[in-house]
């Protein structure tokens, strides 16, 4: 078995782990780090359910090897809520607007959006739709997700200001 030691900063905590070189970043997060909030929907880079932040930018964790993330910061959905359990504005907005049904695609959407709203804090509907077009949701028909992003962007703007 070909293995390698890697060090990654996951949700703010530094972790040094030995991984098989072929292990996908998504499996590393789920199986080795036991952070099961990151979901696998297609493993060929289309559905976006496995989206995490790699050095702060949204990327599909099924299209990266764990070894490629050596030395990088990885943030997953588990990083969003505060220590006291209170929700991030995006999480709150998703719930308020019924932007999730089965919840399986939700973490991937939110991680895509964390990055997007940092880049574009005041997006139009069209920009929101474009931003989430790399994430598939089979339950909601997207309408409420768009609404949730509108609410979250306003909440984040207030927080920031």
């Amino acid at each position, binding site marked *: 078995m070909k293995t390698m030691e890697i060090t990654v900063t996951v949700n703010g905590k530094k972790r040094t782990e030995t991984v098989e070189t072929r292990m996908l970043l998504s499996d590393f997060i789920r199986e080795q780090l036991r952070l099961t909030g990151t979901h696998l*929907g297609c493993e*060929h880079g289309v559905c976006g359910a496995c989206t995490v932040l790699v050095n702060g930018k949204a990327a599909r964790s099924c299209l990266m090897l764990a070894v490629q993330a050596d030395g990088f910061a990885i943030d997953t*959905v588990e990083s969003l809520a505060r220590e006291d359990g209170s929700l991030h504005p995006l999480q709150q907005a998703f719930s*308020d607007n019924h932007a999730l049904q089965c919840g399986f695609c939700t973490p991937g959407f939110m991680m895509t959006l964390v990055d997007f709203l940092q880049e574009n804090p005041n997006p139009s509907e069209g920009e929101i739709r474009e931003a989430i077009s790399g994430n598939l*949701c*089979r*339950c909601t028909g997207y309408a409420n997700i768009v609404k949730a992003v509108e609410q979250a962007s306003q909440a984040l703007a207030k927080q920031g200001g």
Partner: protein
Amino acid sequence: MANLIGQSFRRKEDYRFVTGTGQYVADIRMDNMAEAAFIRSTYAHARIKSIDRSAALALDDVYAVITGEDLVGKVGLMSEMESHCRLPKHIEDQIKPIMKHNVEPVLATGKVKYVGQNVVCIVAKNRYIAEDAAALVKIDYEPLPAVVDPFEALKEGAPLVQDDLDDNMQAYFHLPVGSWEEAVSKADHVIKGRFTSPRVGSNPIETRGVVASYDNRTDFLNIWSSTQMPFEIRHYVAKLLGLVEQNIRVVAPDVGGGFGPKGGLYPEEVLLAYLAKQLKRPVRWIEDRMEHMSGARHSRDQIHALEVAYTKDGTILGVKDDFVLDVGAINYFALTCAYNSAAHFRGAYKIPVFDLTCRIALTNKTPNVPYRGAGRPEVVFAMDRIVDMIARELGMDPVEVMLKNIIPAEEMPYSQGMYYKDGGELIYDSGNYPEAFEMALEMSRFKEIRANQERWRQEGKYIGIGFSSNVEGTGVGPFEGAKVSIDPSGQVILHVGSSSQGQSHETVFGQVAGDVFGVSLDRVTVKNGDTVALGYGAGTYASRSAVNAGSAAHLASVKLREKMLAVAGNVLEIAPEELTMKDGVIYAVSQPEKKITFPELAAAAAPGMRCKVPEGMDPGLEATHYFVPPTVTYSSSVHAAVVEVDIETGFVKIKNYYIVHDSGRVINPMVVEGQVQGGFAQGIGTALYEEVVHNENGQLLTGTYMDYLLPTSMEVPVAVQGEQEYYSTRNPLGVKGVGESGAISTPAAIANAVVDALAPFHVKIDRLPVSPNRVFDLLQDAQSEEVIMPK
């Protein structure tokens, strides 16, 4: 008493989902757990000559390599779901069905019948190693002629899909309502059409998955499955493995969408249970997306050859349909989709004569099972397309023909002169279809669009508007149960037998029970998806949970409320009729200081010497109710699509979309709206993007998400919704099902809108999806055959 019902509460299940702390089957991990992978058939039809697994077994950390032959005599064969096959005698008398017994082993033996069928199972330390081992197994196949086209399959002498049958016609029925000959004799015109709804897949973003573990000390088997039907899984695992049902617990944990095909029994559920016991360790299998595309069951795949008789003013006198359903290699759900097609054909139209013949063909393809709509979108597409064709033949507006034939409100309840599949007479209980249609016309600004279309065309813009209506039997039985109890803490605990794949059970049923007990939503905990919680359960499918589980929850709560008042009366020494309850306190209306809290009452009702339950009553605060609906209740909707077609590229853009729906009494408007929008999104997939394609050898050409196209946020606009609330007369809550209606009319409405946009070219859309290439082809041969024939 309705404080909670009717309100858009935020969902109780959301917190764990948005924080990534839900528990889907892939998140389950146990000590010593092994992982399974399958080798699936790469042939549509082939004899298995030999399987060499020696190299795979020699690999480190490979625990088992199992073939179908290993299981012969140990694991029973899968076959049609009994619960979905039974037909009441009077329906059998009317439709004279043929239904042939068909089987599938959990791993192929002798021959493979479709690409994607399980052939070998490998259990290893982890999935990576299991896949390494899979690559080392050598399977020698002798290809057999594959039957791919259902019409070829039905021909005499076609190669047999199921070797034990005489031919590939697995099922047949004929439903006559009135006399077709008479309808033709009265008609001015008869028009023909042939409408194809191809195969699609439900594609929940969570694939399927199973974890099984066996405890030899208690001889107990635990199964977690991303299933829609945990009770059915328990039944069949017990049956196929020769076990006692109550020694098996099946849990459907958080399930990431299902939409139909996660119902029914799958080979992996049986096999993993078997292996957990054999290997004495937990085994997990998580379907990957490529397995899902071929191994998870498909749906639709119906071809309708239609004739409609009508008068020169557009009144439809009768419909005759001869249709074929391509069921793939085995039919698990008997006539479920096919009879749904029959029962929903005429929808909101008043058509006295209806003559339908159905043949179900076995082919070398993945089995075909119900998926959101389940036989309805196919016939609504056929019906509303042919209504549109009638209008265009007569030079009338399609809207005019639709309205001319719609069932008048004053004729409700309306009988379609046949039975529903549950045996009840097919009588629409409530609703107002003309009103819904008028609402849709108003909302979509139909008149304005008509007035401007010609001008837009001159500017090169091809904009069209299309309509479709449907009436849907929802809340089918046979039953669903609920058990409600008061926890010592005072919390209301509600167990329901139908489990959630995203439908909001924990919130919605909490609203139902909370209203009965007069408590807020946070004082009700709803549990579902667990076979130990309740004796019997059916599942979440067929737009049935709100109706059946909702009614069961309501009636169980009413029972318990009565008991609580009786116990409280006994404790407080006051007549129960003088008591009421609110916020977890039972008190006398006239003397509010006479009161007892739920925890106190729970203690008072507990069994033992000090039990304060009145004479003759059982101790404990617990009640169970199984709701058995008299027959289905009918929801309905009218869809209006406004599209623009790029006549050079063939691309269709949905400009606006409207849905007016009657879901009966609404428990949680936000959830209902979400169901409609979600169904609509899947309808867009069916209408414009999705198709499972096999080549002439039965090879799957749409095996990844690069080729099977699910709609994204860029393809799905907001469906503006209008609401009607005609209460159901067939359940105590007045609710109707809403899970499917969003998906049912979307393909027909969009197809009609495209035809309307392209009116100058006289195109006829008779096949889904309406892909740009197909629109291009239609425009190319726009001047093709005339289908109207003089009488």
